[in-house]
């Protein structure tokens, strides 16, 4: 079909931020479709300015377009005004690259990075002109695929998706392409959909929910089992062994309009073995795979030259842990190409690895935003969550920052953690206050922005058995902090809405019985739930009640060891025994070391896949305790 642009453009004068819909970004492609090439529409189910910078989507966009048997374009959830205009005009979801209708594609592939986008997933499928329930689709409809961190428990959206991809996408998209391209070349005959889904289930890392039977006994989940012998009983995630073989994105998209993270982003390593027990990302992306120092330098200098950005972010789950981080930052700052005008930001920093050396390198150009995440307010709490950073480490990091001219830092904390007492909560206020005191030694204009989020236990983590705090309890804890900090002018307290935390809790550990709930919230107009102006808890609680489901049972209840969890048939490589023992250790406040620099404790992530860490340095890069337990008064467990 031809471009819908002539029909889309007349709608743009009446919508907010029309540049969301034009494409034209530097690095965007206009691939030529053919009957032989599997056509992927990569969709980020949130607003353009949130979705465009997503690196995962950009990586797959390039890899697929390099293949002779695939083409890939992009789409983002149209904002509510544009959605209404499209529906009134009878127009479908479209690609921003060549403005083709979504049904011109063979695969609609969604990135699910947060549970609150589930209703947008349904809305995009519906706007595409595809039945939202997978069982109603025919060979005439595209396949609906999902990837991203939420797929480690995709059961709440199992009714709406055809295939789920677990883990790194770089290799598996090509294997899926081979199956889909063959299906396309066969002319996608009537009745061929079950066959192609069965073939896709043979691809390692691909989970096809419709090929599994789910058995319940009352509320209790009994089993999720494959319906055919050739369909895997447990689907294992995909892991690329060496990040250096995947120097993507090579041509990062440069948007024409304002987006989040509007700068060059270079991924310096994937995976994290710090072992923070609340952190799903750290658990499901193991092991650590560093990109070589030389490749990082090349990607930075070529990326800056090509894009014209004056800021580069070195991304990972804990960037200061990268071997040789000071050299890399110093090299970028000193590069003659940068003319001393390129700022460096490290978005995810551990306080025990943030040194004066890094701070002074960064400060040479521009003092980019500094965010640290102590997560817990007391040492006891941080032992429970295995974030083994000492107060002295935090104050040392503050001194590094304030002494190098910063006057504003951000701190992130969680509340509602296992075994938490009011003393732990108030410890957050005390830490923030002490940080302000450190800053005042250097400047009078200190702001310590302190963000507090309610903890949502996530699948495939040691805390997956834990009962989440109620919104009432979270609000009470927030109020403790507000009261305690009301006279402290240097601390700016912010908190996440406990009502939204509740909905994340419903969706993150739910099972397939939540499908009708998500569908009902969507049908009542509950899209863009990550945006506070569109979020409404009553839509969710009403839908739960209408489906006869208990919020308390799904969210606030501790699970037993022998309970079958909805994601037990999906594996991130971690042994269930490892997770359970780590949960028990948490309850006794016992820590584990970082296995990058200490012996393996056999979590399963390396051994199960025959891979291992790729780390250039045998010791923690910045010295200090590094959260490895070295020199820290902590009871460590040996396994």
């Amino acid at each position: 079909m031809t471009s819908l642009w002539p029909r889309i453009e007349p709608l743009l004068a009446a919508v907010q931020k029309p540049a969301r819909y034009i494409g034209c970004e530097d690095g965007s492609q206009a691939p030529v479709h053919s009957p032989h090439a599997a056509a992927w529409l990569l969709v980020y189910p949130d607003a353009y300015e949130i979705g465009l910078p997503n690196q995962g989507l950009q990586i797959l966009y390039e890899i697929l377009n390099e293949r002779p048997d695939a083409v890939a374009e992009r789409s983002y959830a149209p904002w509510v005004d544009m959605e209404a205009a499209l529906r009134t005009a009878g127009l479908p979801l479209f690609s921003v690259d060549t403005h083709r209708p979504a049904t011109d594609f063979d695969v609609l592939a969604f990135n699910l990075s947060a549970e609150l986008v589930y209703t947008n997933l349904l809305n995009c499928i519906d706007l595409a002109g595809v039945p939202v329930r997978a069982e109603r689709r025919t060979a005439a409809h595209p396949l609906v695929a999902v990837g991203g961190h939420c797929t480690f428990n995709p059961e709440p959206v199992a009714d709406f998706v055809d295939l789920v991809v677990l883990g790194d996408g770089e290799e598996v998209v090509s294997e899926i392409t081979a199956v889909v391209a063959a299906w396309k070349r066969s002319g996608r005959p009537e009745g061929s959909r079950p066959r192609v889904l069965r073939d896709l289930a043979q691809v390692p890392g691909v989970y096809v929910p419709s090929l599994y039977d789910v058995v319940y006994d009352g509320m209790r989940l009994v089993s999720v089992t494959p319906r055919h012998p050739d369909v895997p009983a447990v689907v294992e995630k995909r892991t690329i062994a060496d990040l250096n073989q995947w120097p993507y994105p090579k041509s990062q998209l440069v948007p024409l309009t304002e987006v989040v993270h509007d700068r060059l982003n270079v991924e310096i390593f994937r995976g994290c073995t710090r072992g923070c027990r609340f952190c799903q990302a750290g658990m499901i992306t193991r092991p650590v795979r560093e990109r070589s120092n030389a490749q990082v330098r090349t990607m930075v200098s070529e990326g800056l030259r090509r894009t014209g950005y004056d800021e580069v972010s070195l991304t990972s789950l804990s960037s200061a842990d990268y071997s040789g981080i000071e050299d890399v930052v110093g090299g970028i700052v000193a590069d003659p190409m940068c003319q001393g005008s390129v700022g460096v930001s490290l978005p995810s920093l551990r306080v025990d690895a943030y040194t004066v050396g890094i701070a002074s390198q960064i400060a040479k150009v521009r003092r980019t935003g500094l965010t640290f995440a102590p997560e817990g307010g007391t040492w006891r709490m941080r032992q429970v969550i295995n974030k083994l950073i000492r107060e002295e480490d935090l104050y040392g990091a503050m001194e590094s920052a304030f002494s190098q001219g910063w006057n504003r830092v951000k701190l992130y904390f969680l509340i509602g953690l296992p075994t938490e007492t009011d003393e732990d909560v108030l410890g957050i206020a005390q830490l923030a206050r002490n940080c302000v005191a450190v800053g005042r030694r250097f400047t009078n204009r200190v702001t310590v922005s302190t963000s507090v989020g309610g903890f949502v236990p996530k699948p495939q983590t040691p805390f997956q058995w834990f009962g989440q705090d109620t919104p009432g309890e979270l609000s009470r804890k927030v109020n403790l902090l507000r009261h305690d900090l009301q006279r402290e002018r240097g601390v700016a307290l912010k908190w996440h809405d406990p009502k939204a935390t509740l909905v994340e809790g419903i969706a993150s550990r739910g099972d397939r019985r939540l499908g009708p709930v998500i569908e009902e919230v969507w049908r009542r107009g509950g899209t863009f739930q990550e945006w506070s102006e569109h979020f409404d808890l009553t839509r969710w609680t009403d839908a739960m009640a209408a489906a006869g489901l208990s919020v308390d049972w799904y969210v606030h209840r501790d699970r037993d060891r022998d309970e079958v969890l909805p994601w037990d048939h999906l594996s991130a490589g971690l042994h269930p025994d490892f997770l359970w023992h780590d949960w028990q250790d948490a309850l006794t406040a016992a820590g584990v070391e970082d296995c990058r620099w200490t012996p393996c404790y056999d979590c399963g992530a390396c051994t199960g896949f025959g891979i291992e860490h790729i780390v250039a340095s045998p010791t923690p890069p910045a010295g200090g305790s590094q959260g490895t337990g070295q020199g820290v008064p902590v009871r460590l467990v040996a396994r």
Partner: protein
Amino acid sequence: MTRVRFRFAKLGKVRWTSHRDMARMWERAFRRIELPLAYSQGFSPRPKVSFGLALPTGAESVSEFLDVELAPGADADLPALPGRLSPALPVGVEVTAAGRLVDGGGSLQSEVTSCCWVVTVPGLDPGELAAAVDRALAAAALVIGRERKGRLTEDDIRPGIVALESIDDATLVCELATMPRALRPTELLLALGLEPSHAGIRRISQWIERDGARWEPLAAPAGATGAPHAAGCAS
């Protein structure tokens, strides 16, 4: 200190970007071609770039301007700059001229006195547009409601219409004053009783008028991006 003025066009899909978006595109383009610019002092140094009158989001133009200050001691091969800059800018943004500014010249915002526009309004009956133009030109006053800093005010826009004519049943050519406050083509359409949301709007020239003479901030060289209907807006 060398100051350079650029003239450029903004056509096609990129017209849906905003004035602020354009500012960021230019900053990236200057870094891509490694043009040494002067930077402001202070906490967060910015290149010394000044833009002219904002073009409304959604409007096209063949007559946009931008002034930059080169880094101290730096010089640039001016005739070569448009050819280097256009590929570093998004498709649809084309640099058509570059010229050195003499010292003492004012800013674009303070010097430009009027702009010429071509406005296409589809779907009107034959003669409807010409009649609306005649009524507007005959009126002593044209009062419209405008929002200014969150407050609704009533303004007479008639003095801001320097010239106005319809050249066919769907096309207006007009010259609108920028002082004391710039009159927008969409405001003109509202005053004419026409729906602005489906109009095609293109700025074709900007004028500096002083002491009975008028000139463009920087003339487009012959053969540069054409300005259809430009003849309707006599210089």
